[in-house]
């Protein structure tokens, strides 16, 4: 199974600032996914990131607010821009790999916006 590392694991951010979350995978993968989990809620897909092309965003998420980079097959970043308290969430990186394209998740990045 894929080993996925995320940084930072936790951060407290000031309103109006931006934060970039890094996701590193221990093997090459075609697709990487970014999810958001607001407090007490389930997971919602933000976007799909393929290497060499622009990310594909889900309804309700826009590139200006959540720019994503995918410079190679093992790394991606998600930036949460101009943060507000409503952006306080766990942000999770995930990949497909192996049997049936099983989905694996990183440890998550807990962001609190004050």
């Amino acid at each position, binding site marked *: *199974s894929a080993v996925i590392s995320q940084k930072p694991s936790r951060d407290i951010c000031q309103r109006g600032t931006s934060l970039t979350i890094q996701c590193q995978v221990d093997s090459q993968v075609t*697709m990487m*996914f970014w999810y958001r*989990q607001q407090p007490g*809620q*389930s*997971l*919602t*897909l933000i976007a*799909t990131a393929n290497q060499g092309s622009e990310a594909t965003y889900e309804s309700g998420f826009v590139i200006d607010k959540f720019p994503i980079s995918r410079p190679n097959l093992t790394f991606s970043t998600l930036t949460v821009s101009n943060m507000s308290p409503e952006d306080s969430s*766990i942000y*999770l990186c*995930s990949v*497909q790999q192996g*049997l*049936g*394209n*099983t*989905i*694996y*998740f990183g*440890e*998550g990045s*807990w962001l609190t916006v004050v």
Partner: protein
Amino acid sequence: GIQVEQSPPDLILQEGANSTLRCNFSDSVNNLQWFHQNPWGQLINLFYIPSGTKQNGRLSATTVATERYSLLYISSSQTTDSGVYFCAVTRPNDYKLSFGAGTTVTVRA
């Protein structure tokens, strides 16, 4: 999109008890996974089970694809089993996981 419903929403167990969590889905799927989210937020992949039955230690899962449901069994529960259990599915020719709302399990010593 596909609807995923989990029940019960909350479950409180005494240590050592057994329990069953259910996941219903509204359409055909080619991927169904069960995850456990621990109190630190980490999502642990429990089972990849689009059909059939699997067991891993005290946990087992069964998916009846034709009837569009999956069950997760926890036997001899331990306090470390506490957390939120999510069911997630993908439709054929799709790669996006759709998550249920989760079942919050609390195991008391």
